[in-house]
């Protein structure tokens, strides 16, 4: 019997406390959090009131070292394939084409020897672990502070950073073929002339590097066929291709090449556009050798892009 009355007492007091608490929140709802970022000294000061922001209209400033969408400064990329290898979810796809000679230098002075026919990052798959940015030897692959990049089409989550046109790709490939054929012929001739000297491999330059290049493109298509998960990707690619076809048809008609370079065609991504904007003020030839990291430059552009 005693517990009976205690129950009632406890119920009344706890119900009253609950009502008081929620009523206090209703009253406090007349003040709202301001869209101030972590950097602001008053960030933690507001403890009461409405905590949500009306997101697309207001947003909290992201710190400059925010690590969200990836960006590749393709001019600085030496196409070493490290990022693709380390990526735990395999969302970076690179299609390299060896150049016959050095094709230029990155901003930190590393020499570039490989063209990137394709450098795609599927942001839909990326888990934002940042491993790719840490392994990148030239620090061209960085994470930017752009975090709002939702799309209507899943295929649009694939960001293409390679800038080569299909024509260029074909040209480089042919060049490489010609070069390889010449070299083979040279090697054959060498073999015929001095077969005994061949074994150390001095004649063929960097034999170890070449297979590495070939392995990837060969392995990729196999994966696509094996994994059922890649069906979706294949579909997405299909959609992308259709879109691109339409876009290409209207923009520039290159119907001759299309069947050959199916997989390399990617939708024009926001980043590419951004980059174009970014590149315009900086004339390509007068590029400073020690350029600031793109990450530091991005914020302004992206902030504008958000708006």
């Amino acid at each position, binding site marked *: 019997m005693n517990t009976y009355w205690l129950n009632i007492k406890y119920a009344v007091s706890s119900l009253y406390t609950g009502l008081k*608490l*929620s009523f206090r929140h*209703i009253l406090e709802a007349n003040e709202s959090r301001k869209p101030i970022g972590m950097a602001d000294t008053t960030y933690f000061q507001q403890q009461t*009131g*409405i905590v*949500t922001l009306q997101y697309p209209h207001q947003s909290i400033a992201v710190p400059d070292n925010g690590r969200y969408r990836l960006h590749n400064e393709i001019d600085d990329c030496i196409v070493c394939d490290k990022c693709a290898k380390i990526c735990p979810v395999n969302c970076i796809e690179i299609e390299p084409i060896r150049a016959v000679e050095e094709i230029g230098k990155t901003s930190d002075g590393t020499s570039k020897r490989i063209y990137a026919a394709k450098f795609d990052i599927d942001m839909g798959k990326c888990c934002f672990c940042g491993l790719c940015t840490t392994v990148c030897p030239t620090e061209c692959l960085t994470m930017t502070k752009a975090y709002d990049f939702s799309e209507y089409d899943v295929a649009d989550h694939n960001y293409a950073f390679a800038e080569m046109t299909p024509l260029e790709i074909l040209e480089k490939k042919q060049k490489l073929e010609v070069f390889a054929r010449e070299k083979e012929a040279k090697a054959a001739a060498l073999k015929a002339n001095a077969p005994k000297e061949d074994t150390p491999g001095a004649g063929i330059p960097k034999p170890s590097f070449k297979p590495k290049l070939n392995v990837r493109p060969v392995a990729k298509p196999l994966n696509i066929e094996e994994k059922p998960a890649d069906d979706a990707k294949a579909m997405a690619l299909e959609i992308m291709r259709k879109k691109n076809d339409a876009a290409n048809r209207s923009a520039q008609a290159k119907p001759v090449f299309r069947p050959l370079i199916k997989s390399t065609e990617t939708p024009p991504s926001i980043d590419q556009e951004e980059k174009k904007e970014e590149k315009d003020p900086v004339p390509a030839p007068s590029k400073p050798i020690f350029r600031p990291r793109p990450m530091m430059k991005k914020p302004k552009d992206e902030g504008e892009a958000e708006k």
Partner: protein
Amino acid sequence: MTTFLFFLPFLLVYTVFAVYAERKVSAFIQDRLGPMEAGYYGIAQTVADLLKLLQKEDIVPAAADRKLFLAAPIVIFTVVFAGFAVLPLTSGYAGSTAEVGVFYLLAIISLDVIGILMAGWGSNSKYALFGALRAVAQIISYEIPLGLSILCVVMISQTLDLQEISFQQGIWIHDKPTYPGLLQENYLFGLKALGIETTHIGGILTWNIFRMPLFFIAFIIFFIASLAECNRAPFDLPEAESELIGGFHTEYSGFRWALIMLSEYGMMLLVSFLGAILFLGSWNTPLPNMGVVKLAEWTSGSPGSVAGHLWGGFWLISKALILVLVQMWIRWTYPRLRVDQLMALCWKYLIPASLILLLLSGVWRLLMI
């Protein structure tokens, strides 16, 4: 007689804004903003939702009992709306002046169960059936404390006529032609022995909750039981989104779902009206006459006059709407009860308390003579 011409559009408009208010109240309690996009401060959000609902396909599950499934929402809404028939709206404008008004409302509330059972059974889904069974068990149980707490009021008022009960709670007590045996004057706390007559003071002092101070407890019991009758949190076991995916209306979509929602909010309004009429002075003003400052008369016109209609409607509707807001406030404060807690609360706490109150009301009534 024609109050339904007012209540039908009022119910629709009220529901639209009540859903909006519910979302805002819940948002503020949870430190959120709630709907903000459609219209100024999100005011048109419910209208947009309603338009969407009306466009949706009216899906009838293949395994459902088609006839019952289609009829159930209509039954539920009809029953709830029928409840509004006996409500007085102002001092000169009442619905059906049936002398069994209170009794009729109780019957109507119990009829609601039938519609819920039809929906739950007709859906032929285990969630819907569970929801319906819970609803029935809950509503039947809570009808007892609800009925007993209403009976307390009836005992003091000595009538089942809602308009008569309303007249007794204000300064216009003499304006209703009535039959002998009813009170003709009010005293402070209903106690004649105190010798303070409040018949002409009116205001909050003549509300039932003041005429019989213990009615404060009766009102709380009534309010708890009415929450359970409306299947509102913390008694929303029949709907229990987190376990029954909506309970008896799980399988409904589009227009029929909107109808069920409409009846749920209609039921909230109905019990709020009933609570306001029975305990909170109906359409009487809360402001008392104080000497020459005749606040009560200034804020309520005499029965039948235009001012009487306007003030009466204003006071009654605002009281009911405030009670609806309190229901929302409670819903977003308390967690849902477990089934055994629900039954324990009803049978072990509310029913004994209301039985004792009933006895005390009888005693009090003797003191009022």
